[in-house]
């Protein structure tokens, strides 16, 4: 008799598991549920540090701000790098220097308060007030007297080049002509902030006010903040007060802070995300070779390079730097090591900055010429060249690239390079203190113009950190900022870049691309060189 009970017990267990399996495997995934609700689930990297655009400086925040706020000019629905009316309905410029914006007559904050030109003036005053300590205050420096106000040379904000001519007319006066201002205005440093909400919870320059908490937050973008569970999810919902609310197609977006790319890919394959922010580098070749419908690879306005400390011998010698630049086989690096669609950098400025800009394609691979230059610099066949290190911040991909460059220099120039990795904070500090020889460096463009890549190499610029400087270069850049004629301006910049690439205080290596996974039902989330997003054009069509 006992065996009957045993068999019955076993059968009960098995059918229990089968029932459990059936129930669990037939539940809808989060993506299916979100498709029905019209909510986009987007991976967003690390947890946003803040939702105050004046205190933020990271990419996760940047992607959220495009949903919550809108600058004077917004990303265009058919091309996020293009210009479309945002908080301003129309705009005109006088020689690209004095810009007049007519605001949307029905523009409102999410609390119903009208959005006026005074809000922009308030906002620019806030970010430029030194006491706030805004990381990106310098983004507004092209504006007349903005730098002087921020550094305390001018105390009176009315002297700064921003005026509310009437409630719906804003005038921005720049230091010189900047045809790229519309592209610049899409950066969150230029977004309007709600005075009524900020001052309800503290003073203008308080860093710790609670105005960005879900119940308190007021914004002017296509979406407004619904909930923010730290390290878990940040949800935005339609903003009915938005001037173009009828165009908005999604009912909401949930931004998921997933800092590990492996976890993010797992979550995507588990049906928890419509779109990832990134993906594991090692998985890219497999996705791209299998022609996965999920895999996307878009060019970015961003360059990976090695900077040289020109304060240290022998890197003070341009011949040595040029030899180093010529001995790097960029094709081989992008094809064999990176393998994610990156382009070898033939110059500094990535393609796409400006259709009329002629990038001087000087960077090439020429080991014979490199050896000749090195010999001319006094190191024939690498003899007598002091040992030096390539400084990287700790990361597997930086290491493999550095090792490849190290091998190329060893093979073609017979010079001894080591690889030194440091933790992020230490690595930044070493570069600020010029305590390095060669260091990895990445630069992301802020707006669509070569000047975003070229201006940082002026003598003493805070981002230069190479010790390099050239009077002629500074002069070319200065002239370009004063030149109103678009063709002449680009000519000056091209001349400056040629000079820079002949002196090579930094060795450009490759231009970045953005690899990520996206489900096919997501429509309208288009590639952008600056990673701008026009969320109001996005829809879900399963």
């Amino acid at each position: 008799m006992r065996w009957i009970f045993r068999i019955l017990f076993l059968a009960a267990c098995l059918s229990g598991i089968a029932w459990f399996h059936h129930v669990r495997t037939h539940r809808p995934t989060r993506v299916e549920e979100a498709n029905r609700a019209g909510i986009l689930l987007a991976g967003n990297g690390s947890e946003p540090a803040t939702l105050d655009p004046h205190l933020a400086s990271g990419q996760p925040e940047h992607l959220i701000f495009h949903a919550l706020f809108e600058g004077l000019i917004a990303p265009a629905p058919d091309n996020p790098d293009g210009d479309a009316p945002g908080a301003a309905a129309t705009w005109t410029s006088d020689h690209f220097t004095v810009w007049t914006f007519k605001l949307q007559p029905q523009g409102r904050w999410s609390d119903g308060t009208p959005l006026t030109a005074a809000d922009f003036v308030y906002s620019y005053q806030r970010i430029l007030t030194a006491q706030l300590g805004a990381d990106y205050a310098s983004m507004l420096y092209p504006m007349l007297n903005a730098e002087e106000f921020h550094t305390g040379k001018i105390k009176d904000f009315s002297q700064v080049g921003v005026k509310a001519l009437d409630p719906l007319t804003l005038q921005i006066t720049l230091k010189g002509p900047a045809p790229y201002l519309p592209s610049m205005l899409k950066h969150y440093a230029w977004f309007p902030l709600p005075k009524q909400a900020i001052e309800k919870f503290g003073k203008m320059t308080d860093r710790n006010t609670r105005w960005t908490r879900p119940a308190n937050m007021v914004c002017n973008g296509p979406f407004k903040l619904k909930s923010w569970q730290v390290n878990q999810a940040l949800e935005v919902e339609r903003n009915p007060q938005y001037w173009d609310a009828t165009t908005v197609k999604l009912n909401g977006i949930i931004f998921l802070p997933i800092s590990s790319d492996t976890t993010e890919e797992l979550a995507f394959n588990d049906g928890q995300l419509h779109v990832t922010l990134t993906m594991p580098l090692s998985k890219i070749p497999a996705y791209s070779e299998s022609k996965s419908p999920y895999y996307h690879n878009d060019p970015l306005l961003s360059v990976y390079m090695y900077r040289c400390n020109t304060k240290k011998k022998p890197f003070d010698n341009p011949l040595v730097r040029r030899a180093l630049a010529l001995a790097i086989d960029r094709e081989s690096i992008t094809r064999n090591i990176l393998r994610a669609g990156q382009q070898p950098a033939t110059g500094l400025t990535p393609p796409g900055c400006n259709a009329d800009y002629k990038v001087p394609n000087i960077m090439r691979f020429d080991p014979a010429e490199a050896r000749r230059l090195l010999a001319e610099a006094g190191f024939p066949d690498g003899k007598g060249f002091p040992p030096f290190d390539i400084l990287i911040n700790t990361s597997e991909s930086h290491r493999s690239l550095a090792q490849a460059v190290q091998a190329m220099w060893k093979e073609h120039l017979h010079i001894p390079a080591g690889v030194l990795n440091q933790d992020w904070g230490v690595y930044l500090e070493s570069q600020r203190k010029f305590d390095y020889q060669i260091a990895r460096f990445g630069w992301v463009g802020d707006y669509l113009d070569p000047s975003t890549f070229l201006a940082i190499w002026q003598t003493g610029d805070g981002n230069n950190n190479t010790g390099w400087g050239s009077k002629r270069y500074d002069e070319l850049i200065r002239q370009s900022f004063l030149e109103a004629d678009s063709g002449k301006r680009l000519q000056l910049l091209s001349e400056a870049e040629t000079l820079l690439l002949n002196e090579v205080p930094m060795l450009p290596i490759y231009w970045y691309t953005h690899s990520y996974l996206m489900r096919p039902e997501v429509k309208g989330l288009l590639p952008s060189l600056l990673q701008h997003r026009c969320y109001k054009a996005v829809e879900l069509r399963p």
Partner: protein
Amino acid sequence: MIRFIVSRIVQGIIVIFAVITITFTLSKMVPGGAVRNERFITEEARKAQDEYYGLNKPWIVQLGLQFKHYATLDLPESYHYKGRGVDEIIASGFPISAAVGGAALLIALAVGVPLGAYAALRPNTLEDRTSTVAATLGICTPSMVLGPLIALLFGLKLRWFNASGWFDASDWVLPALTLGIIYSAYIARLTRGSLRETLAQEFIRTARAKGASESSVVFLHAMKLACLPVLNFLGPAAAGLLTGSFIVETVFQLPGLGQFFISAATNGDHQLTIAISVFYAALIVSFNLLVDILQAALNPRIRLQA
């Protein structure tokens, strides 16, 4: 007993202030500071931030301020998560870590103790060897391997649970299973060793001679003593489990405390590092106290003395 508890609490407070001093000193030795942006930040902005966080004061004054923060329980603001108090961050992460850690602890005990006891009662048999091998395997498998494997099997392949995230009521299962399996291996080995040792002692022979049944010998007499090393291990282990495992929380994307602990270090957010270290120290101190009291209750040979 009361004198013992009071003196241990006083010792605990000293330990906590020592932890503040040590983590603060270490954080001052870390180069890089609180501003960790690759982009140049103007001198004005840097100065304003240093002033706001009190970083321009002499370091001895800063240490005094830290003491004041913790003595008055008016905790400072995180450097990285602007406008958020470190207490607010701990309060948001701890319940999740504790829920997963608590479940993991129960799984570890439910699997580890019976497995160890079973092996101890059948020494050098096939069953004993199998469970010892299983336990060794569990100890040797790091959570960064076991976690993704479990996520792949039960998440992506069988689709019984979500592979990651903290949204459904069942999302605690896989991370708790990962942590539970690893800790159960430790507990199984400890239980086996100490139960075998206890069973060889004279009072067990006496109990058997008295004619006590085998089950009462094992469960009433031997287990009570054999679980002492396990209890000792559980004090710090419980504190570790409750405050979250960084790896498991990253693999399963849990918004727990472990993720904050590591990201605080990489972000240069020293206020948060100090706060979580203090919180962790406070938990260990209290669990150790609890374990001491429990041990005294279980083992008549232990007397608590201040």
